[in-house]
């Protein structure tokens, strides 16, 4: 058994008893860099929520041996209220919350860390800007800066490169590579298969069930991708109870 950062044991996740992704078993190795790909409605975001603990399994188990506190999760559409009057600095410094606690103040070293995180994502000079004035790409950079400060061992990214320009995407991918080099475990939902082939050594292809999981070159074959595309997106309102469910 490899050193597991995340372990799935016949995991089924879904809504109202309908599975969005069912019967997933396997292990995400510690320090691995894994892309999760599949068509819309394949259960990719649901899987991220399941790992982050934001969604309870319908059956099976999802274990994070390092504990949920070792996980940092960037959802697809963070339910951020961008009209709220706080600055980029304050938003990013929230990444220190686990370290400082909910009620602790920020030390000078903490402030320096926030400055470094902002610098790492190219947002130096944006400290005092209200978050409502940021562009989509700038907001994504700020959220990556917050992730940096979370200093998590397992990082979950749900479509982090969607609707941002190529330079921002390249900068954020460089951060992902940096996390990988630091032996952190990164799992990212992505749609651009070229990016996956170039930057992600391992891939999990899903289509409401696991289609293939392993080395990216072996997973993203025309046969597997065709299988994934044939997935039925619709829920069956008359579906019977699953015989494989425990």
């Amino acid at each position, binding site marked *: 058994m490899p050193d597991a950062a995340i372990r799935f044991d016949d995991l089924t996740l879904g809504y109202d008893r309908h599975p969005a992704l069912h019967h997933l078993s396997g292990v995400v190795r510690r320090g691995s860099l894994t892309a999760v790909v599949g068509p819309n409605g394949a259960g990719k975001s649901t899987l991220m929520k399941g790992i982050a603990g934001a969604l309870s399994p319908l059956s099976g188990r999802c274990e994070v041996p390092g504990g949920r506190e070792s996980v940092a999760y960037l959802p697809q559409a963070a339910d951020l*209220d961008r009209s*709220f009057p706080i600055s980029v600095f304050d938003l990013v410094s929230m990444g220190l919350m*686990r370290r400082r606690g*909910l009620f602790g103040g920020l030390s000078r070293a903490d402030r320096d860390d926030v400055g470094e995180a902002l610098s790492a994502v190219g947002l130096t000079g944006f400290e005092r800007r209200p978050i409502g004035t940021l562009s989509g790409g700038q907001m994504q950079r700020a959220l990556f800066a917050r992730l940096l400060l979370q200093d998590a061992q397992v990082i979950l990214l749900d479509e982090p490169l969607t609707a941002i320009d190529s330079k921002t995407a390249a900068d954020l991918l460089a951060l992902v590579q940096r996390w990988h080099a630091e032996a952190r475990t990164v799992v990212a939902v992505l749609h651009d298969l070229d990016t996956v082939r170039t930057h992600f050594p391992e891939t999990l292809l899903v289509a409401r069930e696991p289609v293939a999981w392993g080395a990216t070159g072996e997973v993203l074959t025309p046969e597997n991708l065709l299988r994934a595309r044939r997935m039925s997106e619709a829920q069956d309102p008359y579906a019977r109870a699953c015989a494989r469910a425990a």
Partner: protein
Amino acid sequence: MLYDTLIAPFAEFEFMRRALAGSVALSLGAGPIGVFLMLRRMSLVGDAMAHAILPGAAIGYLVAGLSLGWMTIGGLAAGMAVALLAGLVTRATPLREDASLAAFYLISLALGVTLVSLRGSNLDLLHVLFGSVLGLDDATLLLVAGISTATLVALAVIYRPLVLECVDPGFLRSVSGAGGPTHIVFLLLVVLNLVGGFHALGTLLAVGLMMLPAISARFWTKDITGLVVVATGIGIVSGLVGLLISFHGGLAAGPTVILVAGAAYVLSVLAGPEGGLLSQVLPRRHLEA
């Protein structure tokens, strides 16, 4: 002339001094609470909760007449019961919080009016509904001041999770389980301030000094600290000006205070530099970068 208009009413009449102290104390607590209600898009929740505390106050009134302690305890209990029940139904069913809160506060309001009508005259009901800011005794003043103090201390303690719960509740859930308790403490503060307010302004107008200054402040500053300071300031000035107008004009004090806060709101909508109508109409040169 200036002395007679602005100072004499307070220098000569103790009930005016008490009313001013009461409205200052109310503004200090209710202002910041109103700002957070507005930022959480819960502006109407304050109104619903104000109605919700009525049956508790009524039960206190039935037990002991116009007793500060009993009506306070009753109001607190009813307000928290409605807030928690609405929260429970929201989590256990597909109903959203605004819908469940509407259901519970309407039941609560009807229950409250029925209970008050079981005993007492219409005058008593008017007291519960509209308060008597000019009749604040020592005990009521201490209660209002105590609630304001407790509010400011509690807000300082829960400030960070409260802000985070407003900005990014999903993130707060992922790093801490403090979201639920913070929400409950915040609702408790809302109810506490409304109970404090209803002794002075009545259940219906208590929410006025909470929301009108907060909403007005949005037109003057973008910064959250600024919002709290401006809202509190507008509340205090509304109390002062409202009491003076009611004194000189022979008007009911509580509603006049709220009307002055309403005038501050209209002024803010028109002239506020942060999105007020005038600032949108008057051309200003854009910046270089």
